[in-house]
């Protein structure tokens, strides 16, 4: 299975949903419209044998208009080919369709992405925090929040540049 053929088939099916293609990187990468992500993952799983979800994670680019990203790594175990899907949403409307109905393994990964980035996976059966304390009231991997803990007492601002 060649990526050129796959890309052609994807373009035939999802022409206006594919925003950019990057073939130069280590993994064949598509940036796609966030509304079509579930349809594209469904197509790749059922029609193109990408039956393994290697990873699902979030990212935050504060300089972009659509700041929050979700990245999917899929693996075709038959042909041993990988594909990476990127999709972006705005912070005001961080809704993306959940793919838990396709990959049960996405359950905890989507919870983690919600926990750290606040991406709202529509249709997730149990979208609550998974790694951070329950009472945390923000999404700590977003760039606007400081890494440091505000309750730290032994660090003097004058010496640590805070």
């Amino acid at each position, binding site marked *: 299975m060649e990526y050129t053929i796959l890309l052609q088939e994807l373009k035939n099916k999802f022409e206006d949903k594919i925003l950019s293609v990057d073939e130069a990187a280590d993994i064949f990468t598509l940036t796609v419209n966030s509304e079509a992500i579930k349809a594209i993952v469904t197509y790749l799983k059922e029609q193109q044998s990408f039956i393994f979800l290697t990873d699902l994670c979030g990212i935050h680019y504060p300089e972009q208009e659509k700041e929050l990203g979700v990245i999917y790594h899929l693996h075709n175990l038959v042909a041993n080919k990988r594909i990476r899907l990127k999709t972006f949403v705005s912070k005001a409307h961080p809704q993306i369709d959940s793919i838990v109905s396709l990959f049960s393994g996405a359950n905890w990964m989507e919870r983690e992405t919600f926990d750290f980035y606040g991406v709202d996976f529509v249709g997730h059966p149990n979208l609550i925090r998974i*790694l*951070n*304390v329950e009472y*945390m009231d923000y999404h*700590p991997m977003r760039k606007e*929040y400081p*890494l*440091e*803990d505000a*309750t*730290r*007492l*032994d*660090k003097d601002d004058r010496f640590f540049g805070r």
Partner: protein
Amino acid sequence: MSDKDKYTVVEAPEGYSGSGFFATTLDKAVGLARKNSMWPLPFATSCCGIEFMATMGANYDLGRFGAERLSFSPRQADLLMVMGTIAKKMAPVVQQIYEQMAEPRWVIAVGACASSGGIFDTYSVLQGIDKVVPVDVYVPGCPPRPEQIIDGFMKIQELVGNEPLRRRYSPEYKAMLESYGIKTDSYDK
């Protein structure tokens, strides 16, 4: 005894001795017994715990100080030794273990992470266990050497030996526990 110089015994506390009797205060007699048979509960979460394993081993041998028997149940433990990074999610567990220990109880924070958060100045790590339980002795180091842990343990022994028996019944002590959010209902007699 002829072989008395082959082993050491603890020194007797201050007191009056005469022919066939020795008198001292109850505080001192109880303190002497307590401090030489501490049962520590090791709460080891990272590298400081590895140093503690060396401390319990033959080279350093914490058993020489009366702490031969580690208690892995908080019910029988006298001393909570927190050694390592405590994540904020772990904080309620540390506090619950402290609550399960019977009085009198002491706490030692071993290493930078347990004392202040250490290098983990981040949103997910508790910035010192003294945010959730009262700490008696802090041992600095990242991780501290076994000698430092022993030194911290001997500081605890000093506190235990000199503690007045009434201290744990005082309203100040109760208020101190309540300032950490620890329930003290069972303290009223």
